[in-house]
């Protein structure tokens, strides 16, 4: 039987994503029309100046950990549901992350969907990541995410 998620799951999760992301002052957060693809389009600014460096965030949440698979302190998403979600973003031309929140604790987790990669010959690519493991999300990890994206754009502009 198909069940509908309660109204507060999406609203609270999106607000949490904004709270996490706006702890930095170099991100401009845009919300496209609801149900039209990604939940957030983020622009990275440099010294307050618009750079055109875009990345996407898709937000999902659950109200408690009992809805998640957990192996050795690592949360995993349902692979079947995940693959349907991931396919929607496969062809996007910029990095995309999944943010996942457990609403009973407000703790955030993340995984890359399209991960920015620079290979040995300094060629840039976006790795379509089908891994189902979630990493803990905090200010340091968000800094790492932004740093990876900036580095990817730096190399892309130099090739």
């Amino acid at each position: 039987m198909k069940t509908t998620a309660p109204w507060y799951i999406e609203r609270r999760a999106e607000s949490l994503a904004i709270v996490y992301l706006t702890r930095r002052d170099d991100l401009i957060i845009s919300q496209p029309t609801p149900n039209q693809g990604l939940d957030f389009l983020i622009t990275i600014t440099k010294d307050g100046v618009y750079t055109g460096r875009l990345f996407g965030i898709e937000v999902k949440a659950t109200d408690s950990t009992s809805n998640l698979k957990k192996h050795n302190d690592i949360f995993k998403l349902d692979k079947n549901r995940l693959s349907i979600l991931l396919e929607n973003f496969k062809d996007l031309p910029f990095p995309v992350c999944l943010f996942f929140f457990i609403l009973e604790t407000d703790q955030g987790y993340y995984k890359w969907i399209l991960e920015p990669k620079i290979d040995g010959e300094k060629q840039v690519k976006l790795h379509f990541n089908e891994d189902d493991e979630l990493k803990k999300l905090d200010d340091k990890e968000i800094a790492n995410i932004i740093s990876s994206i900036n580095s990817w754009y730096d190399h892309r502009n130099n090739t």
Partner: protein
Amino acid sequence: MRDALGQRGEAIFTVLMTEFHSHAGPIFKPQFLGDKWQYIDFIVELVGAGKSVPYFFVQVKTTREGYTKKHNRLKVKVRQENVIGLASYPAPTYIVGIDEIQEVGYMVSANGESLKSLSSLSTQFQIIRQNRELLWQEVDDFWSRYHTNQLVSKFADQDWR
């Protein structure tokens, strides 16, 4: 486009108001009204009030200026015009101050107050579980005095009975 500080304050407000009170979830349902409303940022509905849906209005002010040294009040400015505008609605109305650095919020009533501008906001009523429950009861009590279905309208559809 909303400025980043305002966007952050609205998100913090939503997170504070939708904190879970039980397995049934939050007791408030806030809806951002967009930038075009002059005095109101949110309409907030009470969850679980029965057949009716009581609500209140909120204006959110966000600051990174911190607190006054003397009385530990949050440094937010609200112009007199905004206080009067907010208080003119025939419904419970509140001003919420958000300290965006600490990610906490404080609420004060804009009903029946002395209609002056504010240069700082009381931190007596932090948005925490206990005050959310008091607020829920206050708004529910306000609306329970009205029998909202008793309007005799000129626009009644006679076949819709």
